[in-house]
């Protein structure tokens, strides 16, 4: 009995100083293997009296637990040490570059269209679209601009045939015509899209973008037009206050017509929208002309409303400080990377129009 206690103490001492995992494992089998010292002691239990056995077994079990405990602690100790040792060796230079990734971008025109759609969505407008190629009726005649009208000269038109029947739409207003012809009032739409004029210089591109707005119902008057545009401009430029001026003007398809200016000033070489005493023309609008309503089979004595047309590219230029309109369409990789928007930046009301 005292033997086994001594053996135990010896092994505990041994284990205390041992640092090699293999040797610890050897000790484990020396003690608990098939013919291990402790195992053998247990075997001997069979040959002692019942009373003795109880006592002995309890002692043996205690010794076994103590040794096993010691061994497992030791193994953990050594393993942890080894891992810690390896950690040092495994250290890498995390300042080396990550694997390549490319960041795609959304073109400013697309982003601004989405911003505009988001704003008008909030006040119940839906988005309509129309074809880029139009017939002259939808683009001009239905819009109260007959062939002999000098107002046609305001639009330098691209034609697709010599009879001037087919053309590239000079504005998004023909979408108004299409929408009203195929439906019944009330109408509440915006129509963004490409528009074309055969005009090309520093500030004009032969293709540009417009958004048309149309709200026709029973009692829509110029006050609503003012309210709608005031709301839009404020939301779009993300300012609390906006200085806005309605100026009488003339478009054949609206009457009364107005051009809208917003106030701005130049601060540190940058345009600041909403303040200052300078005026910037940003859109044209008016009450839809009764003749247009008649042309699209809407009764002007029952229904009335407003329409407006805004240059999308120009709005984008103002909001994001882009100076050159032509650059929008030149596909310069540097420009696209610089002015483009992250594809996850989807303009929305709850997350904010822009980041």
């Amino acid at each position, binding site marked *: 009995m005292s033997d086994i206690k001594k053996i135990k103490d010896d092994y505990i001492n041994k284990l205390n100083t041992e640092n090699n995992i293999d040797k610890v494992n050897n000790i484990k089998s020396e003690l608990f293997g098939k013919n291990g010292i402790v195992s053998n002691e247990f075997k001997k239990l069979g040959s002692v009296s019942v009373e003795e056995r109880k006592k002995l077994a309890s002692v043996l079990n205690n010794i076994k637990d103590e040794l096993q405990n010691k061994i497992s602690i030791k193994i953990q100790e050594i393993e942890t040490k080894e891992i810690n040792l390896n950690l040092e060796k495994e250290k890498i230079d995390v300042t080396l570059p990550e694997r390549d990734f490319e960041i*795609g971008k959304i*073109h400013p025109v697309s982003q601004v269209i989405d911003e505009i759609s988001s704003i008008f969505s909030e006040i119940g407008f839906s988005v309509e679209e129309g074809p880029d190629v139009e017939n002259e009726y939808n683009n001009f005649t239905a819009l109260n601009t007959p062939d002999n009208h000098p*107002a046609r000269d305001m639009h330098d038109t691209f*034609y697709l045939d010599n009879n001037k029947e087919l053309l590239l739409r000079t504005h998004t207003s023909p979408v108004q015509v299409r929408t009203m012809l195929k439906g019944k009032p009330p109408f509440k739409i915006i129509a963004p899209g490409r528009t074309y004029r055969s005009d090309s210089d520093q500030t004009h591109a032969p293709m540009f973008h417009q958004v048309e707005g149309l709200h026709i119902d029973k009692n*829509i008057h110029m006050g609503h037009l003012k309210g709608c545009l005031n709301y839009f401009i404020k939301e779009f430029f993300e300012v609390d206050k906006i200085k806005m001026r309605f100026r009488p*003007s003339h478009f054949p398809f609206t009457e009364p017509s107005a051009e809208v200016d917003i106030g701005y000033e130049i601060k540190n070489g940058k345009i600041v929208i909403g303040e200052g005493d300078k005026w910037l023309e940003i859109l044209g609008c008016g009450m839809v002309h009764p003749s247009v309503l008649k042309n699209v089979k809407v009764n002007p004595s029952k229904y009335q409303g407003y329409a407006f047309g805004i240059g999308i590219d120009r709005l984008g230029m103002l909001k994001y400080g882009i100076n050159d309109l032509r650059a929008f369409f030149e*596909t310069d990789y540097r420009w696209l990377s610089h002015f483009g928007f992250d*594809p996850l930046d989807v303009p929305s009301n709850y997350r904010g129009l822009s980041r």
Partner: protein
Amino acid sequence: MKFTVDWLKNHLDTKFNNNQIIDKLTNIGLEVESFESSASETDSFIVAKIINAKTHPNADRLKLCDVDIGSDKTIEVVCGAPNAKNGLLTVYAPPGSIIPKNQMKLSVSKIRGVTSYGMLCSESELLLSNESDGIIELKNNKYANKIGEKYFKNTSEKVIDLSITPNRPDCLGVRGIARDLSAAGAGKLKINKKSNLKYIGNQNINVTIKKEKVQGCTTFGSCLIKGVTNKESPKWLKDKIKSLGQKPISAIVDITNYVMFDLNRPLHAYDADKIDNEIIVRSSSKGESFEALDNKKYILENDMCVISDRSGVLGLGGIIGGTRSGTEYSTKNILLESAYFLPRSIRKTSKQLNIDTDAKFRFERGIDPLSIQEGLIKASELIKQICGGEISNLDIKKIENHKKTIINFDPFLFEKTTGFNVENKELIKILEKLGFDVSKNKKILKLVVPSWRPDITQSIDIVEEIVRIKGYEHINTSEPIKTRLKPTLNYYQKLFHFLQRSVASKGYLETVTWSFTDSKINQLFKENDKEIPIVNPISSDLNVLRNSIFPNLLFYLKKNLDRGFKDISLFEIGPAFKGKNPGDQLTVIGALRAGKVSRLSWNDKERIVDTFDVKKDVIQSLCEAGINKDDIIIDDRTPSYYHPGKSGAVYQNKNEKNAIAYFGEIHPNIIKKLDIKTEGLVIFEICLDYIRVSKQKIKDSKSEYKFSDFQKSERDFAFIINKNFKSQELVNMIKSVDNKLIKSVRVFDVFEGENIPEGKKSIAVHVTIQSEEKTLNENDLDNINKLIISSVESKSGAKIRS
């Protein structure tokens, strides 16, 4: 429309200062483009400083001066003046300037082998004195800070430039503008003085307006002025003409122009002695011709309104006169014309002949038909005053009487349209000041429209007049009405939005390019589509509508490669045109990737972009937009601009007629033709219109959630199979062995060459098998394995690799 404030005050009694007038004009819809002094010939002379004067290499008497003219760089000027020395402040004239002394226009010239950009001026050259010995010496204390500024002060009166909308011909004359201002409370319109002209004799040149099928002239008024002395205009008249930005010509021409801009009443003066017997106003016949005052010869079509005499055409009525009957300094007798031409006729003729004149601009928009006499009288008076002569009785021939426009206006329409109310009293006052004749019939106002307002024909025009004069600032700002009639976007608009952002999120930069392109590039991509030429393109390399997005995308790819970019990913979403009728267009995404993946990576092997890069991008984007990947079928028939062996078509499912997408390499011949130099180039396109989206909302279309917890087994197979056999078919073949048990089949190796017979390849697949009802035992699995092998072998002629 240009005029000076002084000129305006000839018609308007006003206490408004210039700024108030400018503001008022803008507020009533007469947009002020600018208010500044008209450009003067002396504007170009600027204060300059000689920085360095050295001797001319080829001429001892000349000097070569570096001159500071206030810009970034100095200018080199050759100068012969003895006093040209370092530091001298003087006056510099750039090329293009006109030297006052000899009226010569400067050009860049070589003087003894050295180029001189402009010149330094002497006092005599600038007509300041007779001093011609040397260049001007400016005083340091006065001019040292003014280098680069104009030397001469521009003393001309400031000119208001209005942009008049096409509906307002009446404001193409100063009087009309004054009338509008007076209506808006900016002053009082002056009453025209009664004329006390004495008329002597009759206008004895017979005038006939011929009856024609299409007669563009309804009234022709004229008078003869005999015994005039044509000459230079007096200063006041010259100044008026100059303020319009025009050149004075002679008193008679200047007077007719002056009256045109003053009253918006175009006139024409003929040299009466050059008229062959009589005046006939008629329609032209095709082939007639005449030489116009712009010194061009015009050959006429049928039915153009001409003024002629017995010898032929004198001029185009209301558009331009002819040289044959033009007035000169020697002219003694004048026939003065004041007529009314129909806008439609003027517009048609001037468009056909491509002529634009001030008269045409006015007649086209509509002249006051009742201003004929007033014009004749005002011009005759001035001619008599300046050139002398005696005036005949006025002769007015007309074939039609002016009809008054009458509008019965219900004032309620005003409030209904504008949202605010104006008292009837004020409303009537505004209309009367604008020249309307107003009478009341209960609630309705009976309005006689003034003859100078052809634009006003119906009640809504009256609303505009009142609100414009009253001021748009009176319109209230109502809260936006938020009622929604239908969802903001429809299914296809949402798809557009999803795909656009989904492709961008794969690392592509979105671009927007013209809808037109170069036919030479377009024809490489147009397949069976018809070319759609633009009749009047902006340039010959943008002469057709694009049949595909790629012509532009590749054009700009090349530009970016030239800029030094190597790895480029670009896409555009927009229209591709299939025909020239409205709606013959598809909404397409075109995308390209060029260059390498993992270029110069320290830990990844770099490689050239390939078909499977874009295949991933296109399939992933489609899946993100809601297309079920399991339904997608890939085919190898692609448009001819793709590499025939390295491109694929994507079908949404096997029954579809149109591919929804294509991907792959561009045909090498095209790359060569376009001379695109890049290591690798792959493209894809998605046609949004061919995608069929489920009309079900997600909330209605989510299927029941099912899964199996039983153990899954994985088995690998390798088949030797014909080289052209498509892996997609093999995969489908295996799946169809047992659609329930076989959960997935993945190709993980394809191999040709060593140990594989010629014309064959090895395809290895990894198959996942799992039951939803039980754990499969070895026996079940063996059966499936055998079934897979036997059915693949029998259907495809493949052999399992042992």
